[in-house]
């Protein structure tokens, strides 16, 4: 108990004294995850919205693959990206391995199926409920997908937050492709794993606090967003939130 209390106290000191090592790790983590989420959302929302409206041969098979990818282990993503970026891999010429770019790529790959699948579900529900009304106004599938995605934009913001939560809290992929190099590719999750194994519990715990705070902040954002939506247009139903819970 004493060890736990002492560790927590030291961790708080590191946080409040703005320990440069700790906060550089936090900054790097946020940068990598924000960029990966932005890339994944840019592609995933477009792809998901299109899948929500388009009907074509093989769609069911594609959705099965997509839903399977939701459970993709992050270390497997790390391994695949590693193979792509390794010197003998197809993207080896980029020289990205053990860099932040590789970590961004790995997290984007990890988060892309989440964004695509949740967006697809959200837009497909909207299409089922009122796509016909847009169709009656002459909106073709691609335009319907854009309009429905826009109409469900608050639910999609929840998707974005969920995607960021998935990105920032994963450890396997960034460990494999980033290498956890101090001052260069070390992020919160990889640092927690390393410092715990080294026995430097205060730094690990302080990073844990920050990580938990980020996740807590995300949940606060989701709640605030939902309350704001209810106030603006009186609708409280959020299909994506329902899926996340």
């Amino acid at each position, binding site marked *: 108990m004493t060890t736990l209390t002492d560790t927590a106290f030291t961790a708080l000191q590191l946080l409040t004294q703005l320990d440069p090592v700790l906060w550089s790790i936090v900054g790097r983590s946020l940068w990598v995850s924000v960029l990966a989420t932005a890339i994944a959302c840019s592609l995933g929302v477009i792809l998901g919205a299109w899948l929500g409206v388009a009907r074509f041969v093989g769609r069911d098979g594609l959705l099965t693959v997509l839903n399977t990818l939701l459970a993709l282990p992050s270390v497997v993503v790390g391994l695949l990206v590693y193979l792509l970026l390794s010197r003998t891999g197809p993207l080896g010429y980029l020289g990205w391995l053990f860099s932040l770019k590789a970590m961004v790529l790995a997290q984007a790959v990890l988060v892309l199926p989440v964004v695509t699948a949740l967006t697809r579900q959200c837009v497909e529900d909207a299409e089922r409920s009122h796509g016909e009304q847009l169709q*009656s106004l002459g909106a073709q599938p691609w335009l319907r997908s854009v309009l429905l995605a826009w109409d469900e934009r608050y639910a999609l913001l929840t998707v974005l937050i969920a995607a960021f939560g998935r990105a920032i809290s994963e450890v396997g992929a960034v460990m494999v492709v980033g290498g956890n190099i101090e001052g260069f590719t070390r992020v919160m999750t990889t640092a927690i794993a390393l410092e715990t194994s080294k026995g430097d519990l205060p730094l690990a715990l302080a990073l844990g606090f920050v990580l938990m705070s980020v996740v807590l902040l995300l949940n606060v954002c989701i709640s605030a967003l939902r309350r704001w939506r209810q106030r603006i247009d009186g609708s409280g139903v959020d299909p994506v939130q329902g899926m996340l819970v």
Partner: protein
Amino acid sequence: MSAVLSLKEVSVQFGAYRALHGVNLQMHLNERVALVGANGCGKSTLLRLAHGLLKASSGQVSVAPQVTQSMVFQRPHMLRTSVLRFVVCGMWLQGTPWRTAHERAMQALARVGLQDLAERSARTLSGGQQQRLALARAWALQPNFVLLDEPTSSLDPHAKREVERLMADWIATDGVSLMFSSHNLGQVKRLATRVIYLEAGRVLADLPVDEFFNRPLGDSHPEAYLFLKGELG
């Protein structure tokens, strides 16, 4: 008189379920056709077919080239935008430039009495106001053939009366052709010139409105007669 809509031996099938079966129908300019019948008899399917939202499994559907259609649904979906933009968006989808659509959209809102709510979120409107907004959007598209799927069935009596008044006003001023489904026989009497009675996807009666309500149908159209008496099923 030229036909604006023509259906020849049209059937619509959803898997094993046949929603429409061998329907023959011709509708002419300025006609106001009411579709009546029990739930699931094919009214909505027929409206969607006429509007091009569904394809016939067999038979032929033809709409005259001069026809411009607009459809109002039972529960209009309110886009997450303002009342004005809701109308403007509909016009934009039909090819009107966004900027030039505003004036006509405001006229449409004034026509249904929603001009003062133009900047309000469409989703905060009451059910009756939402249906009036849907009518405004349909009117703004300047159609000459309007299809309405049970436009007043989910409204309270006051809102029902208001929406029906707007429909009557539209008919009187613009002379549009109308096809609507309804369970409200009083409304059918007031708005329609012709009644089509459907049962299990088949047209069992297709009569001028006076004949449908005033002629003894017991012998010629027994199912329609029972429906009118409220004794069907």
